[in-house]
């Protein structure tokens, strides 16, 4: 290699090296710090965690008892992210208004042809396209494993007050179970759990019930988001289980909805299937 080529190669990776060195110099004190971890929170939680929040799983006690408001904010973030993803993907039909209608590699379907309803590419009809992506391997692995993963997700969600698990973890496993069912199920034999309408309504209802459970503490006289079941006479772990179920359904339905949208099974604004590739 000539010196000129060597020099230009080094010059092209110089911004990368400079930025890496700068970030490394800023982060070195964080990653190599040696101050001891403060144990006051851990000691207090070990002594009083079960009595104050009702959960034997101390992690659940933290995010469902002491910092439940933080969990409410996180579900709002999830709602916003799901709405944004659905809004961007399912309504991509109007994105070709700028007219990028070239036929070179990686080009989208021409905008003019799409607007006119006919395509100039040799795209197969939608039913054949769907069947072509459903290979034997996918059908066996995801279609048959889907119910198993769904059951495991429900177990993790429901048992979260006694073993590692809870609403968030169980919800993410439920979402992957829903995506498995959507990927591997037959054309007309899928459950209603993979329909976009069902998942959207499920997420909205779960969020409503979460806010209702938060306000029930106020109506019972203890304050916002407090464990009111101890005053009523029921075991206080029931509140943790209730919140776990609500959060698990919300997270599962939300992330499952995003997965279904990325599989292009969500209908657009006009009620027809969009983005067939």
């Amino acid at each position, binding site marked *: 290699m000539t010196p000129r080529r060597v020099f230009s190669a080094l010059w092209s990776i110089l911004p990368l090296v400079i930025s890496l060195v700068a970030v490394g110099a800023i982060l070195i004190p964080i990653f190599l710090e040696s101050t001891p971890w403060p144990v006051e929170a851990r000691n207090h939680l070990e002594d009083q965690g079960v009595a104050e929040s009702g959960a034997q*799983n101390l992690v659940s006690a933290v995010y469902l008892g002491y910092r439940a408001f933080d969990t409410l904010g*996180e579900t709002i973030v*999830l709602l916003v992210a*799901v709405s944004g*993803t659905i809004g961007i993907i399912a309504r991509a039909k109007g994105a070709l208004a700028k007219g*990028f209608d070239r036929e070179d590699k990686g080009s989208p379907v021409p905008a003019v042809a799409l607007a006119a309803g006919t395509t100039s590419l040799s795209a197969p009809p939608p039913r054949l396209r769907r069947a072509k992506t459903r290979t034997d391997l996918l059908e066996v692995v995801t279609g048959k494993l889907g119910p198993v993963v769904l059951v495991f997700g429900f177990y993790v969600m429901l048992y979260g007050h*006694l073993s590692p698990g809870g609403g968030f973890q169980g919800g993410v496993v439920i979402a992957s179970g829903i995506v498995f069912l959507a990927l591997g199920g037959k054309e007309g034999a899928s459950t209603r759990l993979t329909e976009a309408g069902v998942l959207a309504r499920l997420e909205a209802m779960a969020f409503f019930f979460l806010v209702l459970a938060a306000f029930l503490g106020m109506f019972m006289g203890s304050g916002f988001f407090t464990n009111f079941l101890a005053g009523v006479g029921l075991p206080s772990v029931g509140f943790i289980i209730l919140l776990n179920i609500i959060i698990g359904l919300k997270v599962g339905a939300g*992330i499952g909805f*995003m997965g279904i949208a990325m599989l292009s099974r969500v209908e657009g604004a006009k009620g027809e299937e969009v983005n067939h590739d």
Partner: protein
Amino acid sequence: MIERIALFVLFLLGFAVIVGHKNVVKKIFGLNIINNAAVILFVLEGAKVGNQAPILTTGAAVAGAAAGSAGGSGGAVAGAVAQMSGEVTPVALAPAAGTVDSACAAIAEASGAGPGAAAGLTGDLAGNVAEGANSLANLGAFSVVDPVPQALMLTAIVIGVCITALALALAFRLYKATGTFDIDEMYRRIHHEP
């Protein structure tokens, strides 16, 4: 120490992916790598102060730790006493001796002494074992790890998944609008189209 250096390298790797690659999807996964490095650092640091999972199965870890240490030290003392008195029968103390009393009863049984000696042994042993258990609990030998970083990182992971999905949806929209995933090519197509 070696874990922190590995996490530092992971973080820099994710950052290098963001800065170095031209593909939008690869940049998004560089962000994901950075998120994972930060999450693992938090959980790792929180796990340095204890050695058990933060799930209290008997309602209070201190009571459970005291019972556990009493049973354990009772078993050790019983083994020593049995050896000293010449007995060779094994004393099966481990699962049954959850309290100081049952440990002392098993010791008295194994050494063949009378109930009076067992009572004296119980009083002595109870004081010593309780004191030892208290000091052990204060030292944190049977304590759980810090659950606060784990609870924080739970939400961080779920939010990371959602933001990755949103970013991928944006990348898909960019592809639909410009026909490529390469940012330089995207820039050219946006700015040089009539």
